[in-house]
């Protein structure tokens, strides 16, 4: 028979829809509306998992996200998800699941041997052993521990599903859709406030779902909310964290209940909610009682058992015993009896209680003043041992289900994350939220107000108050559920039943009450020490069912009240969250945005290989077939040196600077002077940080008396702009200067090589490019192919060179026109690599030298420093450490071997003898020189310039290479700057 434990009727499942699923290779049936756990129970599966440390057999303990035991691997392959709580997995047809942390099988797990030796594995045992012999740690002990540890196996492939983020704003955010949450949302929604209602479950209703009598009010309220345009209800959405400034994070499981997400759909969505006011109606979670065997399959929280019967139409046991210390849990036995189960005994620790009396009246056997001291059965429950507290009398009852209730813990984790302190309620024997700090309040069971009607009333008050605080006033009245709660007797706090055997306070991590006491004996008495020493509350359930119990055991050991001992700090995540959904769309190609120049499509068509620098995609070189390694780079560099080439330099930062004080401002930014620069000319400039280190360099042109155009390095474009804004707004607010980035507005193209002028002359209109009319460092407007351009005579390559800027909309046209014009001279497009070859040959500093650790003096740029007047960095640059004679300074290096055989390595160190370990400096940039036909580089070497002409060694122990080099001037090519000026 399939689903032998399924009731013929009742519950919220859809019996018309039968779904097949697999667990450990066997196929079972369930229904739409089932969770994996309810479907497994319906099929009589009791053994579902293994615990972390002792590999003890475990069953299903709860009916919600607090589940510590029933963790499974969900789906397969790239979609495998380990540690999934069977209690919240919505069943769908074809779902594949498997048990985990067992070998070779769930029923026969070799590691269960740990349990036999458990007395030798007390809390923290590993801190006291595995120390000898020392070498065994890495080789033997640790690999063994690592294999044993962990729970499930993660997928090893990229995730095929998509995720996304959504930002939301609302007046009132309600978390939880039980009686309290629904009423709060209704009360707030009625005022016209913008309301969001989040519910982690796939059905709205919380505790209302357990009793069909509440369906009327529930349906009516949901319908009312649905009719309000400013109310948004999100089921399957868990608020995972409460952050500063009333911002909450939540995860919506959009498609987890489907085999795969629909086309164009996402698997999950991460919501960032900025709420004016928050109502936390998160309900309460039942807690366990520590007694020997409280972890065995068949032991289950009382509300969970009730939930399986009432909501899922499943009997979790045919012979059920209840063990309780409170009245609320009695609801379970009525549910079980309705479901046809026998209830041989109710064990109530209290001497008397109203619920006990009522139950006796209803024909139940109630043993008051009694407690459970043990169970029989390993893979399934067979019986329960009971002891009377007064006389120590012992008896046993056969049972296949033991329902346990130690009382309710309000779900205060979100409230506590707001920094609001928790307060102890002696009446309820639990912590409740204290005075709020952020704009929030708790309602209903979340603050210890139990009972549907009471919770709904409390939610109404909270929702009204929240709406009011957000500027909306209550308008209408609505009905609340009937008050059906009978009078109840108080709970009697019982945390642990002391008896022989393992009484667990943390089921997943196998922490026992004895472990807590051991921690205390050894001085780990602070609740945070005890947690870390015993790992109590550190498992995937974060101690939701046993956390407070552990604190209580510790408090007893310390002889102090629980409120003094406290509970460990609550932190996100309320329930664990997939990393992928928090990343959202920013994965793969979209990990970072891509910035493309105006000529990007052209480069792509021309076969450019791109380099990711910051956000930019820049052509590294253009490949021809049959080229490998350095071939294309050297081909391009040679072509430029021989005739000419053009290069996309649009990524340089460009800042338009205007205003009456523009020149003064630039004088203070740069170490050199710009106020003396004539209109129509450009000048190279260097700027420092205030600490005296070089910040950036580039050329700045004067376009008018009060108008300059700055260029920055690609890497520093944003930082320089921010730096300028700081000084213009904060340091010198009196200066009349305006500036903004024009990096995107202008496409810029370098035209370099002996034939650069000839190329330009062919295509430039309206500008005399003769050497006298348009000398080195001149700037002027012109036209190319009818497009407006600005021509700069600047050179990075060391060749006769120009840069042509044009509004980006003309970029590709001008680029093509230049290539066309240069056809006669065989000019070619070249990329970043060839540019790098030439800049190293020329000795221009770039990123590898501008590390933020070098001074202008280190880089041989101190001659630019003006003698008079303020500039940023001037004062700090005179500190002794920045002027020390032993600082490494810029030099060139050339391989003595005049071939490309023995390569120089960037990052090699300079030493005087081949085998020396005494570093004198390092190699910053290297290249194969097309001019010198050997490896050359730029290096920073102590006492650099004095060493020019000396033979030294560039050593790279990482490569096991030593290359003999000569120290030279950094200007390997054309040191007199003739080429750029002719």
């Amino acid at each position: 028979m399939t689903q032998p434990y399924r009731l013929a009727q009742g519950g919220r499942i859809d019996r018309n829809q039968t779904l097949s699923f697999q667990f450990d290779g066997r196929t079972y049936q369930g229904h739409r509306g089932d969770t994996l756990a309810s479907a497994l129970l319906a099929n009589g599966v009791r053994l579902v998992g293994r615990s972390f440390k002792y590999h003890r057999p475990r069953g299903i303990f709860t009916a919600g996200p607090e589940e510590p035991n029933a963790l499974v691997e969900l789906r397969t392959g790239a979609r495998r998800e380990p540690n999934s709580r069977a209690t919240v997995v919505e069943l769908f047809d074809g779902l594949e699941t498997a048990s985990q942390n067992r070998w070779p099988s769930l029923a026969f797990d070799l590691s269960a041997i740990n349990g036999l030796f458990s007395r030798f594995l007390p809390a923290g045992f590993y801190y006291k052993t595995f120390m000898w012999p020392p070498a065994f740690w890495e080789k033997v002990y640790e690999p063994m521990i690592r294999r044993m540890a962990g729970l499930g196996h993660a997928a090893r492939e990229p995730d095929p599903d998509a995720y996304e983020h959504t930002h939301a704003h609302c007046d009132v955010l309600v978390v939880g859709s039980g009686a309290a949450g629904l009423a709060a949302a209704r009360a707030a929604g009625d005022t016209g406030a913008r309301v969001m209602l989040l519910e982690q479950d796939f059905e709205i209703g919380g505790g209302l779902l357990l009793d069909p009598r509440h369906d009327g009010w529930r349906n009516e309220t949901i319908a009312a909310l649905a009719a309000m345009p400013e109310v948004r209800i999100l089921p399957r959405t868990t608020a995972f964290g409460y952050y500063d400034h009333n911002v909450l994070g939540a995860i919506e499981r959009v498609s987890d209940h489907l085999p795969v997400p629909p086309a164009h759909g996402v698997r999950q969505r991460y919501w960032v909610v900025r709420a004016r006011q928050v109502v936390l109606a998160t309900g309460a979670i039942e807690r366990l009682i520590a007694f020997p065997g409280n972890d065995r399959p068949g032991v289950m929280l009382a509300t969970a058992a009730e939930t399986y019967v009432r909501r899922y139409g499943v009997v979790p046991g045919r012979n059920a015993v209840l063990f309780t210390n409170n009245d609320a849990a009695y609801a379970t036995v009525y549910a079980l009896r309705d479901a046809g189960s026998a209830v041989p005994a109710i064990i109530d620790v209290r001497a008397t209680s109203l619920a006990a009396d009522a139950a006796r009246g209803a024909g139940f056997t109630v043993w008051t003043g009694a407690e459970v001291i043990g169970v029989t059965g390993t893979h399934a429950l067979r019986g329960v041992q009971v002891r009377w507290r007064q006389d120590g009398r012992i008896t046993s009852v056969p049972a296949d289900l033991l329902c346990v209730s130690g009382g309710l813990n309000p779900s205060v984790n979100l409230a506590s994350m707001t920094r609001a302190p928790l307060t102890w309620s002696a009446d309820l024997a639990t912590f409740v939220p204290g005075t709020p700090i952020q704009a929030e309040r708790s309602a209903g069971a979340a603050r210890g107000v139990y009972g549907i009607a009471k919770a709904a009333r409390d939610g109404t008050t909270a929702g009204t108050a929240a709406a009011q605080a957000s500027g909306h006033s209550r308008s209408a009245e609505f009905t609340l559920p009937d008050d059906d709660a009978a009078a109840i007797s108080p709970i009697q706090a019982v945390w642990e039943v002391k008896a022989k055997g393992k009484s667990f306070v943390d089921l997943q991590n196998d922490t026992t009450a004895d472990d807590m006491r051991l921690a205390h004996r050894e001085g780990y008495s602070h609740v945070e020490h005890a947690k870390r020493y015993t790992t109590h509350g550190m498992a995937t359930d974060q101690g939701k069912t046993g956390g407070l119990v552990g604190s209580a055991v510790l408090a007893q050991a310390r002889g102090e009240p629980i409120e003094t001992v406290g509970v460990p700090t609550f932190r996100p995540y309320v329930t664990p969250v997939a990393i992928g959904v928090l990343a959202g769309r920013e994965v793969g190609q979209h990990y970072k945005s891509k910035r493309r120049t105006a000529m990007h499509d052209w480069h792509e068509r021309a076969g450019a290989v791109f380099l990711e620098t910051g956000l930019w995609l820049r052509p590294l070189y253009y490949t021809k077939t049959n080229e490998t390694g350095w071939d294309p780079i050297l081909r391009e560099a040679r072509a430029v040196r021989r005739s000419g080439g053009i290069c996309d330099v649009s990524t340089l930062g460009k800042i338009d600077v205007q205003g009456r004080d523009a020149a003064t401002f630039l004088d203070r930014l740069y170490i050199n002077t710009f106020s003396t620069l004539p209109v129509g000319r450009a000048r190279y400039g260097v700027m420092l940080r205030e600490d005296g280190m070089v910040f950036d360099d580039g050329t700045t042109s004067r376009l008018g008396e009060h108008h300059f155009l700055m260029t920055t390095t690609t890497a520093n474009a944003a930082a320089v702009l921010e730096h300028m804004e700081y000084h213009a707004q904060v340091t010198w607010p009196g200066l009349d200067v305006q500036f903004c980035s024009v990096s995107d507005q202008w496409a810029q193209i370098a035209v370099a090589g002996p034939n650069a002028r000839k190329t330009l002359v062919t295509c430039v209109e309206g500008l005399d490019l003769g050497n006298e009319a348009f000398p080195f460092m001149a700037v002027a407007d012109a036209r190319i192919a009818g497009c407006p351009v600005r021509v700069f005579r600047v050179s990075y390559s060391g060749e006769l060179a120009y840069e042509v800027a044009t509004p980006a909309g003309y970029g590709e046209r001008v680029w093509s026109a230049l290539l066309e014009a240069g056809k006669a001279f065989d000019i070619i497009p070249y990329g970043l690599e060839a540019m790098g070859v030439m800049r190293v040959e020329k000795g221009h500093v770039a990123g590898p030298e501008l590390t933020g650790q070098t001074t202008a003096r280190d880089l041989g740029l101190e001659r630019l420093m003006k003698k008079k007047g303020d500039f940023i960095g001037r004062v700090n640059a005179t500190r002794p450490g920045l002027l020390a004679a032993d600082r490494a300074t810029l030099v060139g290096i050339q391989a003595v071997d005049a071939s490309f055989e023995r390569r120089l390595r960037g990052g090699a160190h300079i030493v005087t003898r081949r085998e020396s370990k005494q570093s004198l400096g390092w190699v910053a940039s290297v290249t194969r020189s097309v001019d010198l036909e050997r490896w050359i580089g730029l290096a920073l070497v102590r006492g650099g310039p004095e060493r020019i002409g000396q033979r030294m060694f560039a050593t790279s122990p990482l490569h096991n290479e030593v290359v003999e080099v000569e120290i030279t001037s950094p200007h390997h090519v054309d040191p007199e700057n003739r080429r750029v000026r002719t």
Partner: protein
Amino acid sequence: MSVPEPISQLSAHMQPGRFGADGNTPVLLSERRRAIAQVMGRKGQDARLRAAIHGAFGLDLPHPGSSVTRDSAMAMWIAPETWLILRDGSPSDDLTRDLTAACGDAASIVDQTWGKSIIRVSGARACAVLAKGCRIDLHPRVFGPGKSAVTPIAHIHAVLMQVDATPAFDLIVPSTLARDFVEWLRLSAAEYGYEVVA
């Protein structure tokens, strides 16, 4: 010789068509071309600048968070003493020339026509699409036609302006990031279905 027509970096990547999920209210995406200039007031010239812009364009320079339109021209606040002026149907040179002529030394004028791309997103789900990357509140109670904001969307610096109550939004983003931005919009709109229109 006349100046050739500039080429948008986006046009090749915004071919018209219907994409994503089926649905009867697709999101509409299109590129818009307008001349754009940035106007930055010089120190102590606020009154002169306002008068100049009013005189030449009939626009009263707007307050933070808003924009004003008059005929084919529009002014939008983007920073203290700083506005974008947008104009339909005129080459960018003309706009900067007109502005310079009008403002004299009351302002620094910078052409941004090709530094920016304008993308229009409209349709009933436009806000839902934008909320996937935009951190500010676009709810009608807070935002609305004529409102504008400078805010990053999907990590890209954007100027966002509500055009009408459809709702339709114009998003002004750096041209070098426009293609990336459109890719993000496409992914975000696919769930509802979207149409790229000319």
